[in-house]
């Protein structure tokens, strides 16, 4: 598969985008990506959307949002797993030989979505919903498990959170929140033992759009300068149950990266120059780094990752945008010198049930 990213736009992050409807956020971002690619909407032959009805607050939300996402009278498909899953579907479409130039968009306006209630209603109604499982509680179960298996203690987590905020503070494309003092992190209330509120990244509003082109299209348009080639992709989803093996083995995470690395012709994650991880809590970050064997690698989430911005559901797309900036040398204060190949990751579902990884190569 020979597919390139030729344009992108990331909506300005915000805790709450109060001056725009979601349709306007989506339109502005899709429009921005087309402009960045230097192509018109007429030229694109397909659109792919990644969105969640429940978080958008409307059944079949793409009824309303497909048009601002550029899909009016265009070939359009929508997936509901995560932003980066939609990216992979879009890449397969652009690389199929049937289509050649596509637009992919994902978004989240979680400031107006009751996220924990949405997550509770993901539980089947017989056993897990009545006991009140939600995102925080399942992340707490995950934290307990990985702390035990990987020897993660709370001080490590507190340091990881502070480092995340430090990196994020340097990122001009992020929220640039102040780095919280250590005692604020270590004394914040427990949400679900051992997970504290400070260990979770705040959720933000956001949207990301990208224009993808096949190798054939790029070859026929010599004036087009691609931002990156998609060197590898992988996505896996684990089971619904929350047992120790499922939570702690990180099988889906490891296999997702193995798939993407294999497609890119790489053997190990440490061959990557940059990895932008979707680590919704400090426990996630430490467990993921340990599973990948990159504990010593400096260039893990140099953007600050979820602590820079975290438009839950589409966070993998912001990671993809950061990875693409890195391989172009355009990441500014968060630039990793000499970065040529970078991975973006997204986690989705209860306690990282699903994972997606995309590897970008500078062109």
């Amino acid at each position, binding site marked *: 598969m020979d597919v390139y990213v030729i344009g992108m736009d990331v909506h300005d992050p915000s805790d709450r985008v109060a001056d725009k409807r979601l349709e306007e956020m989506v339109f502005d971002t899709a429009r921005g990506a087309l402009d960045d690619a230097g192509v018109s909407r007429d030229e694109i032959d397909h659109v792919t959307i990644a969105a969640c009805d429940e978080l958008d607050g409307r059944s079949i939300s793409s009824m309303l949002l497909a048009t601002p996402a550029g899909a009016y009278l265009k*070939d*359009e498909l929508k997936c509901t797993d995560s932003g980066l899953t939609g990216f992979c579907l879009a890449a397969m479409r652009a690389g199929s030989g049937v289509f050649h130039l596509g637009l992919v968009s994902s978004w989240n306006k979680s400031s107006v979505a009751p996220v924990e209630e949405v997550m509770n*209603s993901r539980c089947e109604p017989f056993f897990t919903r009545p006991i009140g499982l939600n995102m925080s509680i399942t992340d707490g179960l995950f934290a307990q498990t990985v702390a035990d298996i990987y020897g993660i203690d709370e001080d490590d987590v507190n340091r990881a959170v502070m480092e995340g905020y430090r990196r994020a503070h340097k990122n001009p494309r992020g929220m640039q929140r102040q780095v919280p003092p250590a005692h604020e992190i270590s004394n914040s209330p427990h949400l679900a033992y051992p997970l504290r509120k400070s260990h979770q990244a705040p959720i933000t509003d956001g949207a990301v759009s990208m224009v993808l082109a096949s190798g054939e299209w790029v070859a026929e348009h010599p004036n087009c300068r691609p931002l990156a080639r998609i060197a590898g992709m992988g*996505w896996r*989803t684990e089971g619904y149950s929350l047992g120790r093996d499922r939570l702690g083995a990180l099988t889906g995470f490891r296999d997702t990266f193995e*798939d993407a690395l294999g497609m890119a012709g790489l053997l190990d994650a440490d061959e990557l120059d940059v990895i932008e991880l979707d680590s919704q809590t400090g426990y996630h970050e430490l467990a993921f780094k340990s599973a990948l064997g990159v504990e010593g690698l400096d260039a893990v989430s140099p953007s600050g990752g979820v602590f820079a911005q975290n438009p839950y559901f589409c966070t993998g797309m912001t990671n993809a945008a950061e990875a693409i900036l890195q391989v172009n040398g355009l990441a500014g204060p968060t630039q990793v010198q000499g970065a040529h190949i970078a991975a973006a990751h997204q986690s989705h579902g209860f306690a990282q049930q699903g994972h997606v990884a995309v590897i970008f190569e500078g062109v």
Partner: protein
Amino acid sequence: MAKQPVAVVGTGQTRFRSHHADKNYVELAQDAAKLALDDAGMVPDEIDAIVFSMSPTHFMGVNDVERWSIEHVWGVNKPFMRVHTGGATGGSAIQAGYFHVASGMYDTVLVVGADRVAETPDSQHVLNLIWDRFYEHDFALNTVTMTALAAQRYMHKYGTTEEQFAKVVVRGRKNALKNETAHLKGSITVDDVMNSPRVSYPFKRFDICPRSSGGAAVVLTNKDVAKEKCSRPAFMTGVSSITHSVFMGDRQGYWADTDFADQDGYDRAAQECYRQAGIIDPVREVDVLELYDPFSTFQFPALESLGFCGRGEATAINEDNGWEIDGGIVAVNPSGGTLCTNPIGVTGLVRAIDAAKQIMGRAGDMQVKNAKKAIATAIGGSTQFFTVSAFSDDYVS
């Protein structure tokens, strides 16, 4: 042209009915997956990736229900994604599966889903929630009333009567008698349709599909595996899924690009699908149509937009039995169609399965003789998502 030809080598459908008291949602999905794997002569380990077909999960009451289903469809730690485009979901899901294989990313993909539409006391209440909460919820807009508006416009444009629409229902229920999985079937008359209780003009109860529950699945693979696994695979030779505006008022009148009454995304979707499939004249080349027709008024504008006759001509052809299985221009909905079975999350997949089975020679009593090319469609949203998929006994080289 696809980099890898894609073929259907196995299909599975549960029986469809209002309620399956003995099965929960995930068991229905599992039953469909098992049937498709058995039909393909495969075991779960031979599946590389899974696409899950499910429309709004509000019908059955568990958000993102595909995540609950993963173990049951043998999807643990496999590449897995859910596709959702409202009523068109099944049509979109099989096309997403197609791209998994056509791109060369995966060899063999299971597309599977289920729905339990009757879990909610009134699915039209849920379908009211697809509309704008400030302007449209309060005046009872749902998929019945929405479609009634389009039907009235079609009647106004072309003079079709309620009795003429009723004949579509009579034909569908008759065809469904040969479909062992169909929900509604039987010998009924135009009077039966006309005398059923009024719901929303021009619809009476019998003009409207049932709320069905059940599961459906297909196995897609590349041509090399297909050659090994199936003596007569159904190649997917064309895929298109055109999206229109949600705003029905913008799709009629002087300034509109198209007309809402004409199911105005099908023509573009069909042109693209036919181009990919190498179909020049659908009337001469297509043997079977499996149309998405949850209302009696859907077939005529669909047949016209898909190029099987001119605008406003489908009604008269129906009067002359031109859409019958035997002796018609093309065999329309040998399965009975969506009027007889509508498990919304997989309805488009059921259309595709019934079309593919015709090509594979596995349609049983519904089999159309010498079927070599079949078209399956689906529609979703405010009659705004249009999918058209072509199936053939050979791939386009």
